[in-house]
């Protein structure tokens, strides 16, 4: 009988993650919405409704709604806290770096992942990577829709390589 190595739960649910899970940021409605996307994880049924306010290329505010597990909620909360003030392309760079970390590639030295680093342990729990990525997949589609002149998009984590 082959046992999997002991996996510490605390790797997954670090203190920072639990704090964002218990007190999620970015729940307040925005005064103005310039891009919106509805993300869905068909594996578990979790949903994220993401609204973004933009001043030209700069993100002014992020609202995250929906229902998700602790990992998904924390990931969305961290996003809502860190993105305001960054440009859309900076947000995309952050998103790509985070995706890399989730798939085992360390973030480039010039990218500051902030609290997202606390989600690093998720990569060891393969099925949970999609939970962490759901808000970010949704953000990518919101940005894409906004660039194409629309405001609404629908995304699923199935576009995310597991």
């Amino acid at each position, binding site marked *: *009988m082959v046992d999997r190595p*002991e996996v510490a739960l605390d790797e997954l649910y670090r203190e920072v993650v639990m704090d964002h899970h218990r007190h999620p940021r970015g729940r307040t409605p925005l005064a103005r919405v310039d891009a919106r996307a509805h993300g869905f994880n068909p594996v578990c*049924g979790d949903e994220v409704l993401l609204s973004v306010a933009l001043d030209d290329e700069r993100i002014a505010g992020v609202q995250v709604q929906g229902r998700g597990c602790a990992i998904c909620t924390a990931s969305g909360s961290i996003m809502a806290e860190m993105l305001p003030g960054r440009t859309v392309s900076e947000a995309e760079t952050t998103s790509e770096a985070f995706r890399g970390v989730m798939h085992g590639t360390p973030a480039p030295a010039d990218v500051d992942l902030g609290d997202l680093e606390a989600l690093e342990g998720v990569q060891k729990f393969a099925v949970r990577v999609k939970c962490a990525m759901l808000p970010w997949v949704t953000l990518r589609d919101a940005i894409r829709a906004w660039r194409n002149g629309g405001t609404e998009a629908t995304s699923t984590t199935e576009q995310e390589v597991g």
Partner: protein
Amino acid sequence: MTSIAPPAVGFDPRALRRRFPILDRKVHGHNLVYLDNAATTQKPAAVLDALRSYYSTSNANVHRGVHTLAEEATGLYESCRARVARFVNAPEARGVVIVRNTTEAINLVARSWGATLSPGDEVLLSEMEHHSNLVPWILLARERGVVLRHVSITADGELDMAALASLLSRRTRIVALTAMSNVLGTINPIAEIADAAHAVGAVLAVDGAQSVPHLPVDFRTLGADFLAFSAHKMYGPTGVGFLVAKPELLERMEPIAGGGEMIREVRLDWATWNDIPHKFEAGTPNIADAAAFPAALDMLEDLGMSGVRAHERQLVGYALDRLRGLGWLTVHGPLDPHRRGGLVSFVDPEIHPHDLAQVLDTLGIAVRAGHHCAQPLMRRLDVAATARASFGIYNDRDDVDALVDGLIAARKYFGLA
């Protein structure tokens, strides 16, 4: 706590457990507590031995060769069919089509019998169906302009029989329902529904994925026209499932896949079909897994499905009492163990099912968390997901106790207790 019945007499889950090699393993340093039997069951050594024996002694293609191995392989494959017919008391073995799984069996009915439907004809389903008994009909509706109707469920998670009666009409051509919900555990009154369906001239297709492994099922008294189920949920191998049907209906159906084995005569531009059930079995089938499945049926027949049902009914009764006794869980489905099979779906309002399942996994407890391939039912229950514990012959009260301890540990871990 309400009344807890004593364990079923003569049924020894501990002894049964020793027949399943995988149940010896540890998960994260803990004894495995396997409570995901509605997804798939574990396999006894007898099934593993039969698989090995097939490939070690009799492997050949079926129905074509005259050599000894081909004859043996064909005999084993066909004896699976005969054993399945006997297990569910089907009128004839030729009414048993061997497919990959329940999903494929339902798709066969939807595509082949469904091809006889016209625009405006109706198919009656329910809100508690698994995606495998929803999506094949959605495909049919898109192709043929068929109208889909859905029986609602009551607050207790049972089929609304008044709604069913009002939705049945002369336009209803097919009624397709689960015999036992994979989320709520609800056991539906199929025999009663069969009479009502036949009274309006419809056929009844039953999703038996959860019922056939856990309840005594007699195809003849059930009254269904089609019954679909999978070997892997009844201690057999993956990759083998069955469509049991009235032979006279199969005779009237066109094949949905063409190829070897399903033909009688082929010219360059036309072909005639083999007899049933072979005309629905194009190409080389999953011979080895079919050959191994009777070893699982031997075990279930020795235990007796009434004994299996009594054991699981008492276990689910105990689980319902203990889970509801915790006080903080929402438990879905009927509360009377006589009206439900051996599974329980529940939600901790403060811990997402995924997080709950993650904590339980670190304790070696395997439960399912998610939408259980029943997204419309999740919407009806107004939840994104549930956690589900589902029982098999080798589970006992200790497993339920471990689950309950795990749920308490999860609350502590998330700072809720």
